[in-house]
């Protein structure tokens, strides 16, 4: 158990290191960062001075270590475009994304798990068909397109919901729904199939044999076993919400880090890119670690190893 957590922790740290190298290299591969920072009016002298100031005259590995040290201290440098500290910009944008991701995640679990269970228990009934259709569509339809279509329908045609920006509770409805749909669909499918597997097992048969009511057979004996695999998946979903959030934030003009990242890329604003990518990476690593620990905790076979 401890070993398992340790392995995952090391893996997370390595992932982050690889990611930091990638973003570090990216700023060096795509041109001279000093030229970039210098702007159009800089002279050769300014250029040399700048290079010295920011340590670009040192060998690459040393530069990387300096970069890493700064990053660990939370210093990502200053954006040459806005002149603001990249960290401040990030922190300013972060809550919007976290709120959206949190809302979407809750929606995913609250709707996804019951729908999956229902779909399995009421197999081959109307519930099952609706559940399956919903799940298949959620996986197949691109979220950015669904978002645009919902804006067209609820914003433009019906005029029921606001379609851009952050604001009251109603601002969350469309983006959170679109963002959660893919993950929700995955959870429905997963819970459904693992529930079907579990319902086939001997211990469920034995629970029936010993006279437990169907409700207890399903909601006690089957559910816990069926939800365990969904747990790992939902962790990945939460981490993966960042995946979808970039496109969703763009469509709904949501002031989060996804849009910030895209902006950064388009403007070649490296401090911003580095800050957002590493923040997203950290978020992913932490979430998957927590999920792994949780998984081990609910699964006695791993807990007692």
């Amino acid at each position, binding site marked *: 158990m401890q070993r398992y957590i340790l392995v995952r922790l090391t893996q997370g740290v390595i992932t982050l290191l690889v990611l930091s190298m990638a973003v570090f290299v990216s700023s060096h591969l795509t041109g001279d960062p000093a030229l970039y920072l210098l702007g159009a009016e800089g002279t050769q002298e300014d250029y040399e001075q700048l290079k010295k100031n920011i340590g670009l005259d040192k060998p690459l590995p040393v530069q990387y270590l300096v970069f890493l040290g700064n990053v660990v201290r939370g210093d990502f440098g200053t954006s040459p475009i806005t002149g603001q500290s990249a960290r401040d910009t990030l922190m300013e944008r972060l809550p919007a994304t976290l709120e959206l991701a949190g809302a979407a995640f809750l929606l995913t679990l609250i709707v996804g798990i019951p729908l999956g269970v229902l779909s399995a228990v009421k197999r*081959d009934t109307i519930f099952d068909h609706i559940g399956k259709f919903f799940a298949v569509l959620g996986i197949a339809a691109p979220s950015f397109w669904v978002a645009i279509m919902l804006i067209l329908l609820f914003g433009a045609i019906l005029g029921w919901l606001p379609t851009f920006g952050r604001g009251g509770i109603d601002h969350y409805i469309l983006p959170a729904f679109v963002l959660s749909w893919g993950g929700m669909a995955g959870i429905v499918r997963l819970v459904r199939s693992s529930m079907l597997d579990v319902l086939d*097992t*001997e*211990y469920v*048969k*034995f*629970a*029936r*044999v*010993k*006279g*437990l*009511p*169907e409700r*207890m057979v399903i909601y*006690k*004996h089957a559910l*816990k*076993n069926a939800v*365990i695999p969904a747990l790992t998946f939902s962790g990945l979903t939460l981490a993966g919400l960042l995946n979808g959030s970039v496109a969703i934030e763009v469509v709904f003009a949501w002031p989060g880090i996804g849009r910030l990242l895209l902006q950064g890329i388009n403007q070649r604003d490296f401090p911003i890119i580095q800050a957002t990518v590493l923040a997203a990476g950290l978020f992913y690593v932490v979430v998957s670690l927590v999920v792994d620990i949780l998984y081990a905790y*609910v*699964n*006695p*076979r791993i807990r*007692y190893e």
Partner: protein
Amino acid sequence: MADTPVLDVQDLKTHFFTRTGVVKAVDGVSFTLMPGETLGIVGESGSGKSMTALSLMGLVPQPAGRIVGGKILFQGEDLVQKTQSEMQAIRGREICMILQDPMTSLNPVFTVGNQVVETVRQVKEASRFSLKDRAIELLQKVKIASPEDRMSNYPHQMSGGMRQRVVGSIAIAGSPKVLIADEATTSLDATIQYQYLALLKELQADTGMSIIFITHDFGIVAKMCDRVAVMYAGRMAEIADVRDLFNHPAHPYTEALMRSVPNVDEEVEYLYSIEGQPPALDNLPPGCTFAPRCPYVFDRCNEAFPDLIQVGDGHSATCWKLAGK
């Protein structure tokens, strides 16, 4: 011993409706079970013995499987007519079952104590306060050492033999009148199986319950049973008192099967062997299902499935050879 049977199964038919056709898993099975009696149902895989057990429990796999005919009279009431919720009240309290594989019969994510206690609560054998005591008592009954400590164990922390004991304790929690053991000892090692069989006998002596042993092993029948029903391809081949069956097997299948099993107690130079394979259940031969493998086969055997013919007191078999007498 009372004269009325606790269980009276008449012409039970359980069929499966699949895309490729109807599988007659159980096709006309009849037997009675007296209070305190031990009945063995012997057969090979696909003989319908396990499906017979599930039919008795009202747990035929849905939606493909269905009881399409016959009666299961339990203390005079027909279980076939009962609703699922009525059957649920009967399971555990009146009829219970031990499944084959102790490794998978217990839920891996709950403690042993939890699973015993929930059963005790369900069968309402005890007041709320003594649930735990009753659970411990049950574990003691199946001879689990230091049951208090074992209550907090998870199934994977126990050995196979130990788990099967826990399963046994759960099965007797509701003091059922009929206990079905479906290949309950097949996966256990010889010495552990021996202990377990002894335990079941002891529990039976204690409670006076009837036991149905579902098995493929004539050894278990010889050791444990009072009466035996032999099944072949979903139908009854023979039913008899255990000594009658071993001394004078009437059905050619029973006879052949007995002669083809090696023996620990004596040296056998050459075993008799039955040629061919058991038939596929969705494609049965027209007459007697055993006819293609039977050494005594004659014309009539290929025409119709034989009636159950009485050959002695409580001893009958489905074979045309016997009708000639």
